[in-house]
């Protein structure tokens, strides 16, 4: 079995079969991380370049650990201290990196579409680790795995994605992937943070989160970036948390078996109250654990794939 794609750029490219294969492989990988010696030699001798042109802790570490647990050599490149800051164009950097014969390029960039650009320029597989306001496919896959492990199914579930949909690459990947897998996805947040045209993705929109919470099987809270306040997408963090935050009060209306996801990092007390983030419904740390397994699976499945 192999994937139908060479790159992981957008969840649009993945077939349902691809997703099933990725999740099955990830389940097999989970056990490795539970051993006392957390390493297997299946990617020994492979080189994985982690190109994070935008700051990241969680995703970069997750990829690095995933690579190392499979015995690959993971090399980190950030925009600070790289040739990019010396004026080299992105494509030149990519060509130079490729000349060193890496097996996979993992790319995070603040500009949407850069992983696509690089995938056309280099020979090896490229994994999009988050590009601008576009997509974050590995996050959506790990969210899929997290939901599936608890709920045992995706089809028919009602998943509410709440918060800053406009700026969220996590939201877009999840909307596409979860709908592909048969879930009903609803969006909620202030209208200023709901992108125009998103309803054409087949997702109902709510401006009052209390309207969507009672029927949700899964609530996915998105991070509010503080700089959005200065840009007047909402008046204040205080008001945001009062009307769009998940807290004890709003949770009273939720299903008993609801689960809560958040891609992190969490703004405690803004989009989610601390007692909810740490509470019984929260799967936030499971997401992080599953992230390593999903990324191990992807590295494994893409390694050896050549043009």
């Amino acid at each position, binding site marked *: 079995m192999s994937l139908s794609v060479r790159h992981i750029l957008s969840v649009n490219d993945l077939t349902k079969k691809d997703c099933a294969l990725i999740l099955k492989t990830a389940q097999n990988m989970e056990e490795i991380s539970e051993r006392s010696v957390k390493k297997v030699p299946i990617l020994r001798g492979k080189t994985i370049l982690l190109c994070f042109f935008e700051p990241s802790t969680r995703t970069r570490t997750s990829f690095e650990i995933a690579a190392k647990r499979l015995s690959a050599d993971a090399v980190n490149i950030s925009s600070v201290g790289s040739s990019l800051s010396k004026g080299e164009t992105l494509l030149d950097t990519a060509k130079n990196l490729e000349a060193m014969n890496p097996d996979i390029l993992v790319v995070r960039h603040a500009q949407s579409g850069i992983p696509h650009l690089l995938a056309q320029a280099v020979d090896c597989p490229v994994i999009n680790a988050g590009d601008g306001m576009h997509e974050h496919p590995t996050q959506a896959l790990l969210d899929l795995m997290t939901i599936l492990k608890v709920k045992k199914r995706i089809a028919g579930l009602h998943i509410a994605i709440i918060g800053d949909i406009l700026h969220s690459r996590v939201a877009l990947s999840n909307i596409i992937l979860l709908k592909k897998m048969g879930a009903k996805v609803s969006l909620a947040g*202030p*209208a*200023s943070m*709901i992108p*125009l045209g998103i309803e054409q993705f087949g997702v109902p929109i709510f*401006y*009052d989160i209390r309207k969507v919470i009672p029927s949700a099987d899964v609530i996915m809270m998105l991070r509010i970036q503080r700089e959005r*306040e*200065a840009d*007047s*997408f*909402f*008046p*204040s963090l*205080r*008001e945001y948390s*009062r*009307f769009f935050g998940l807290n004890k009060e709003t949770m009273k209306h939720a299903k008993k078996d609801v689960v809560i996801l958040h891609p992190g990092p969490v703004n405690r007390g803004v989009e989610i109250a601390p007692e909810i983030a740490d509470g019984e419904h929260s799967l936030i740390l499971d997401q992080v654990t599953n992230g390593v397994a999903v990324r191990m699976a992807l590295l494994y499945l893409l390694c050896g794939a050549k043009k």
Partner: protein
Amino acid sequence: MKLAITNGRVIDPSQNLDGDYTTFAENGIVTSIHRNKKVPPGFEILDAKGAIVSPGFIDLHTHLREPGFEYREDIVSGAKAAVAGGFTTILCMANTKPVNDNASVTEMIIKRAKEVGLARILPVGALSKGLQGKELAEIGEMVKAGAVAISDDGMPVMHGKLMRHALEYAKSFGVPVITHAEDLTLSDGGCIHEGKVSTALGVAGIPEVAEEAMIQRDILLSKLTRHRLHVAHVSTETGIEMVRQAKKKKLPVTCEVTPHHLMLTDEACLEYNTHAKVNPPLRTRQDCAALIEALNDGTVDAIATDHAPHSEDEKSVGLGCSNFGLIGMETALPVLLKLVHQKKITLKKLIQLLTMGPARAMNLKGGSLKKGSPADITIFDPNRPVTIDPNRFFSKSRNTPFAHWRLKGKVLYTICNGKVVFSS
């Protein structure tokens, strides 16, 4: 408290009613209207013989100046002026000091208005913090506290993206956005309409485009965000045509015009009359005619006064330096009835623009005498001669361009929440 209004000619455009009816109200609610003149025992009777009985007037645009500028007006004097003019519901703009840009100021205004109790005073929350046009005000919190709309009225929102976000954010809370349409880079420094009069007086003018460019921007933003926009005090022919076209395209746009823009031209500013200095400025005959036409064809939803009190001192510093604004609640009815007496509009149309029209534009409960509506009722004699005498105003300010005008039309009784709050 039971009230019966007998012998009057009831005109209620919300139910297409015009005729002799008796109106019954109990506990602040209209309980019935019928032809039968017999009043059961227990009702206080108000004889409205020879007068018009209308739903209480609604003014979508006033400045009550409290908190902060109580020397010009306060909630007590403003409410008294309102009911003397026949208004039972008024919206008050946010340019107070401190600005009504947060729930605590909104709550304070509502609390004061309840204490005064004469009219329903509904606060409009600021659109941006401090009316600075930079960051959104806490719109959600103000709406929960009772604000019925948001607006930076008086301070145009120059930042297009902020206006967009305001429309979107207000949409989340279901309140309309009121725009004071003015491009400050075009009106910059001007004090009256730009034309023959401004040239004759040698003062800087405000061109129509300063208003029209912003009306068009905001209509297009309303289209983009699919949210309710209300254009305040439209003053030009082209501006009202833009609203007409927006309505034709079924965009969620409403508008108001003021009595002064309907009745006066820039010639009122001759002799440097600061009481005719208002923003947007008084325009030309052609603009007045276009606005009157728009009353009749349904383009205009409401007539609002933009009641803007200023002290004598603030108006006595020359045309260039004096503040913009004039008061209008106590003069609105006789001034507007002139249009009826001149047969430019019908009495029914005028009442519609003061009652049902504004109620629908802002999604308010009143504006109707249908059974179950609030018992807010205005009784007036449309033919009684009056001379406008600013010294007899309930308002603390005197800045009216209509002083000494001899008109016809007098408010006899104003009833709010089933109680007589004004009688002449």
